[in-house]
């Protein structure tokens, strides 16, 4: 999918067309990429394309989900006027879950934290298909999010993405960023015995291309479906969630997961005495030097 940058109405029409296409192809769930209702490099247009949960556009989207549940990528505006890079799960005419992107890349070519507020929770939710987790693009580059997804009972992780192609290296059919994504999608699916549903966009914005290549990976690490690289595509595949049960029966790693140990160790690390003391020392020395300027 290749949305128009900052043109909400044009992209709503695209959404409607894709939903119709999904219905015609007897899809039961449709995934749109990150910020695909708005475009990605929005910069100062963020406030102009932001939608509150009770906006007219949201009502349109809700209605569209009566026949086909879907995940949308859009800018959500909170009641106190913060703007979030959000993924919203619509089902049966209702909003069932909103995920606000937690990890907003602000380095290199990215500037998300300049324009967006940061989400503060990562939670699985129940859908008509079973328990799922929504994570947006960079969220998945922080392994704590996928760990939480697994422990929160997700059978499938849905990741809308706007991942730019970069790093053309030798001996690969895809760029190096695409290679990295494919590696973690597969590793996460296999490690946590769940489905990875990864929806990435295509097209170019100001010369930056998005590599497409959406994919579905099953709990055994096998690729169920793959979209074209560097071009628009529409892929449909059977996601047989019972594969999660088979995989978890064979390799009950999640059963054996010691969550308490992890929590205890995390708390220890957070309260690490040495680090705490060092920070306090630095703070007090700064205060002192401000209070008592040295005189010559």
């Amino acid at each position, binding site marked *: 999918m*290749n949305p*128009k*940058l*900052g*043109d909400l109405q044009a992209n709503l029409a695209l959404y409607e067309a894709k939903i119709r296409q999904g219905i015609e192809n007897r899809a039961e769930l449709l995934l749109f990429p990150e910020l695909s209702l708005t475009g990605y*490099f*929005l*910069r*100062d*247009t963020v406030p102009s394309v932001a939608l509150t949960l009770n906006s007219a556009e949201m009502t349109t989207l809700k209605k569209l989900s009566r026949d086909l549940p879907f995940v949308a990528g859009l800018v959500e505006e909170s009641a106190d006027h913060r703007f979030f890079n959000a993924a919203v799960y619509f089902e049966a005419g209702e909003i069932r879950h909103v995920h606000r992107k937690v990890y907003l890349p602000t380095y290199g070519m990215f500037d998300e934290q300049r324009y967006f507020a940061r989400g503060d929770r990562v939670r699985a939710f129940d859908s008509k298909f079973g328990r799922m987790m929504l994570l947006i693009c960079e969220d998945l580059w922080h392994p704590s999010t996928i760990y939480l997804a697994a422990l929160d009972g997700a059978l499938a992780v849905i990741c809308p993405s706007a991942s730019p*192609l970069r790093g*053309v*290296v*030798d*001996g*690969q*059919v*895809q*760029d190096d960023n695409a290679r990295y994504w494919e590696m973690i999608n597969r590793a996460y699916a296999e490690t946590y015995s769940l489905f990875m549903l990864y929806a990435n966009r295509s*097209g*170019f*914005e*100001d*010369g930056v*291309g998005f590599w497409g290549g959406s994919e579905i990976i099953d709990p055994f690490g096998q690729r169920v479906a793959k979209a074209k*690289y*560097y*071009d628009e595509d529409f892929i449909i595949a059977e996601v047989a969630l019972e594969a999660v049960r088979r995989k978890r029966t064979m390799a009950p790693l999640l059963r054996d997961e010691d969550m308490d140990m992890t929590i205890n160790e995390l708390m220890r690390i957070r309260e690490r005495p040495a680090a705490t003391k060092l920070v306090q020392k630095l703070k007090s020395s700064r205060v002192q030097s401000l209070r008592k300027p040295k005189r010559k």
Partner: protein
Amino acid sequence: MSPIPTNTTLLREILTAFIRNEVHKTGLTRAVIGLSGGVDSALSAMLAAEALGQKNVLGILMPYKSSNPDSQAHAELVAQKCGIETRLVEITPQIDAYFAKFADADARRRGNKMARERMTVLYDHSARWNALVLGTSNKTELLLGYGTIYGDMASAINPLGDLYKTQVWALAAAIGVPPAVVQKEPSADLWTGQTDEGEMGFSYREVDPLLYRMVDQRYTRPELIAAGFSERFVDDVALRIMNSQFKRRLPVIAKVSQRTIDRDFRYSRDWGK
């Protein structure tokens, strides 16, 4: 040292998709390109013909009376190879008319004027033919500032700006730019006997590995020297990059308001597209 990666199959796929996407989203279907007879414009033209279709690309040859006759022959060879139409617009009359009034102008001023004259011809044809001007500046010359600001550096979209010269050569060879064009010595051909490497004082094969490590891989100065580049070379290139930064940016605007263009009025160029 590992060579600069040059996956020509992937580059070709990405760069043709780039041209197609960026041209079509403006509502246009065509591109104009100044064909100099050199490898950069040859590669740009080949990629554009592949991306947009031969009929949608126009090559413009703009020789000056002192231009090397080989340049025109090579430009025609390229046009033939990629199957695009060409137009000949000689720039001698207007250049000579101008410098008749400034006879003392040196080669650099004359060369820059020619580059800017060619730019105005390209932009006029872009309006005449509803086409975008396709750029031909590669990453090496953009970083070193080896180009004329608002001259050959001007374009609407540039497929080559992130490719080093040695990558341009490799990709040009792979997609079938005539060998005579790929293999000849690079020259801006602004005066007789001018060559890029003669003027810069080092070769592309020497400077590209340095730029790649310095810019793409973020090697520090000590790391570059440890990797075998001489201190003088490293410092010379670093200084060229710094001193030519102005060529890679829009003009500096004096900020007086709350919202100044490009500083706190920030929109992508493809806004609404």
